């Protein structure tokens, strides 16, 4: 359980970091996934580029448009930010499910996105909110939409020479509520299945739109628009009285999770239905009647 040899770089500026990265290597931010992979010799990068000394990367910017987390913004910092929670409550709702407090103290939001674990919470959040990732390399910068960012299990659209410098989570639209529900074997474990939900009400405070994103059911986050089954046949019902079972059944029919040693495919699919119902109901309850 000792890593194989690697070169270690500790750049002090973003430019240095990008120059180092141009030579090849793996970025070390919070290290909560990378260090175990190194110790188990499942990863053997020639070079580690430790960006923890790059001061400009830890910014957490909250504007009316949304929350922008720099590459070194720790889970705990985002989770505890009242400003971020006010603009986009789903972040805090989801981050509470990310591992344990000590891991959240060190792990980074952007690192979790770049790691692109299909069982992780934040990729589903970014996908549901239509957020994006900002990437930089020595040759330029670009923005990658969430829909394009997650390309496979532990695979993202980042190029080898690129550093994900920030992630942007758009603000909540008016009269919209969010919720996050997941089921893990133990407190803080990777979820067997998780669902992030977003429900928007109309001027009459009836459900106008309902969407959910799922983790643990496919190689990448799955986003489903559940507005149709959520609205159909529920005319006149206030959000607290909506029957979400049709939406849950709709979701169940559209996911095809695999099984592993912790849970079989049938159980995971069943959980998609249960969690869809629970998350949508809670999101509707959380939708402020008077707009945000």
């Amino acid at each position, binding site marked *: 359980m000792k890593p194989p040899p690697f070169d270690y770089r500790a750049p002090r500026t973003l430019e240095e970091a990008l120059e180092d990265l141009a030579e090849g290597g793996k970025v070390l931010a919070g290290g909560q996934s990378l260090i175990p992979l190194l110790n188990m010799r499942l990863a053997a990068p020639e070079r580690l580029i430790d960006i923890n000394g790059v001061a400009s990367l830890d910014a957490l910017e909250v504007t009316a448009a949304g929350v922008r987390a720099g590459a070194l913004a720790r889970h705990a910092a985002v989770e505890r930010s009242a400003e971020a929670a006010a603009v986009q409550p789903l972040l805090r709702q989801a981050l509470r499910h990310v591992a344990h407090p000590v891991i959240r103290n060190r792990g980074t939001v952007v690192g979790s996105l770049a790691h692109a674990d299909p069982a992780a919470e934040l990729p589903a959040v970014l996908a549901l909110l239509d957020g994006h990732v900002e990437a930089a390399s020595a040759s330029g910068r670009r923005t990658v939409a969430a829909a394009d960012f997650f390309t496979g299990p532990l695979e993202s659209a980042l190029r080898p020479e690129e550093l994900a410098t920030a992630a942007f989570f758009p603000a909540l639209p008016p009269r919209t509520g969010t919720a996050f529900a997941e*089921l893990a*074997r*133990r*407190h803080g474990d*990777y979820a067997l299945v998780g669902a992030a939900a977003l429900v928007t009400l109309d001027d009459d405070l009836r459900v106008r739109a309902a969407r959910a994103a799922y983790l643990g059911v496919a190689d990448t986050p799955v986003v489903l628009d559940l507005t149709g089954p959520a609205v159909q046949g529920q005319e006149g019902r206030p959000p607290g009285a909506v029957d979400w079972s049709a939406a849950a059944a709709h979701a169940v029919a559209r996911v095809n999770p695999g099984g592993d040693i*912790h*849970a079989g495919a049938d*159980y995971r699919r*069943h959980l998609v239905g249960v969690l869809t119902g629970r998350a949508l109901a809670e999101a509707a309850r959380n939708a402020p009647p008077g707009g945000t």
Partner: protein
Amino acid sequence: MFGEPIPRREDPRLLTGQGRYLDDLGRGALAAAFVRSPHAHARIEGIDVDAALDVDGLVAIYTHEDLPPGVGDPLPLLIPHPALTHGRTARPLARDVVRHVGEPVAMVVARDRYLAEDAAERIRVDYEVLPAVVGIENAAAAERLVHEDVPGNVGAHLVQEVGDAPAAVAAAPHRLEFRLDIERSASMPLEGRGVYARWDPDEGSLRVYSSTQTSTGVRMALAARLGLPKTKVEVIAPDVGGGFGVKVVHPWPEEVLVPWAARLLGREVKWTEDRREHFVGAAHERGQVQRVRVGFDDAGRILGLDVTILHDHGAYTPYGIIVPIVTSTQLPGPYKPGAYRVEFTSLYTNTVIVTPYRGAGRPQGVFCMERTMDKIAAHLGLDRAEVRAANFIRPEEFPYDQGLTFQDGRPLIYDSGDYPRMLEMIKELIGWDGFAEEREAARREGRRIGIGLGCYVEGTGVGPYEGGHVEIDSTGRVHVATGLTSQGQGHQTVFAQIAAAELGVPIEDVTVATGDTRRFGYAVGTFASRAAVMSGNAIALACRRVRDKALRIAGEALEADPRDLEITDGVVHVRGDPTAAIPLRTVAVLANPLRYAFDEEARRATQFAVGGSPDEPPVPAGEEPGLEGRDYYSPVRSTFASGMHAAVVETDPETAEIRILRYAVVHDCGRMINPRIVEGQIHGGVAQGVGGALYERMVYDESGQLLNASFMDFLMPYATEVPRIRTGHLETPSPLNPLGIKGAGEAGVIPVSAVIASAVEDAEGIRIDAMPLSPDGLFRLRRRAAVDPALRVERLPA
């Protein structure tokens, strides 16, 4: 002092990071790493080390061919048994065939562990992969063999019978027949194994530190293996971060190879096991399949019980067949099972070896008996507690002979207990009576809750012996030493409590040394809930010797009859006359006649200072100098602790999650030395029991790969998964030992799977016959039960 719930004296040191564990030692030592088999069953065709040779800092690479006779031979079979007709053990480094993933094939020694692993990674081993035997029933089917010369994969087969159980079952008014499954788990101590060795070429002596549960065992095994006199081998167990059974196995391959290499190289060598190695290179436990036939009367009294057990012992049997023997003999628990027949077949598989893990076969036996009790109750429509009570051994029936032979080769005779009283206590603690209404009220809210109960009897304090040495020095400090080891139990506290109480000294003056062969050479080890019973009594007996000697010397000094003396706060005084007194530190001075005065106290013991008859030798015949004493405790047989647990669980109707709402324990370990430590032991045991009931299993695929060999995928409960525990104590002293105590170490873990199964069955109305039970497992059971009435259980009263 004896019996007081004082805080653990070792905690400030251990909790502030001042512990000295194996890897904290030997900072300059060379590091060892091991090349381990990636295959469950394979023939080694060749080993090519060339690519490793240019790793900077490499010191040595060893394969089986490099090992001299003795060192390279198969490891000892520690506990032979006539029924173990085909015992097999591994060599420290595999010679031609590997039989489980993780078996050591080569050892690398390098400047540090990083480099050792770099070199190990470059060693190429060519294997011819052989078909693997995985799973108990595949082993029994024996279409493939683990050892070519072991037919049927059967290592051992043992039948024990009391009466004619098949006939009793056949003649009984009611009969049931069913199958139970328990999966594998493991001890999984926080600190893995580890060994650090120093060879002194001038002295020709070896000092070995090992994270072991038996330093004396390691010492004798090493002396034999390495051809050294015992006096030239010292083995020390430093602070040990948990053992739970796995560290009583010895010598481990690494425990032989590291000291051997240290002597050969003339350098200090250390190996610290990592977690991946612990999963595949140490030991597991628990896995069994049981088939039960039971016959009973209208009151639920068992008339005949016939149990057939298939036990998976992994690839080798270094620790013999202790686990299935314990399952077989502790299965009857607090009951009189009528006629009893138990048959086990212990089978080889291409998996990690199976050796005792806290509970050591009892959780399986208790699962069997307690599931049987619940099934009888369901069949007859009786209260589950009533059925148990109907089968209890009554308090007036002790000593009670179960007619079986226990793991120590002695008759299984229960010494004392009060099971009816204990049942009343546990029912009260958990709220048994009236639970039917509670369950119904929950049901009306759409919630499912259930209650479960489990009882056990645990043979503790197995022999053959332990010893204690007690010395009071001329400062008045009391030095207690015992040979068995500590791995977190609180021996520094309880042994000091015993010594303080026996000697009449402040506990602050008492220090305790354990697991160091330099301090005490004769010992067995810390396992089988035996430390308090064995060393506790030995220390008490040694203290009584020292006390007698102190009173004798003080009597002479005070010109008083020793029978009129007592010791309070470290001072010997005449009863009723506090002015006629002499401190123990002065008695210690007088106990050691001196020629030389090295300080003021010593001056009082020199030849012109002491009185006494000029015609008597300064040290009388039959006496030894010094205020110290040594004694041993060797019991005629084990003493039997007992306990009952109960739980209320809630199952989620949608997600099938299982949550423990309440958990209660009543425990009887005879006289308690320290109730706080007993309770801590119970809490830790229950936590491990919750792991076994709801989370932990070793997931092997059909090729023998362990799929969950990490803490990410092998799910031990966190604090968040362990319920609050309400504990009640009952004390029925053991008549077998001077202190009247019984063991408490393993108790907490034993009935938990049985209790949780009972409670989930009650909540769900579905038969729970296999553990552990995951949410997915319950989800699948629900689906099957929906179409198969045989899987459903009638709602049980209470």
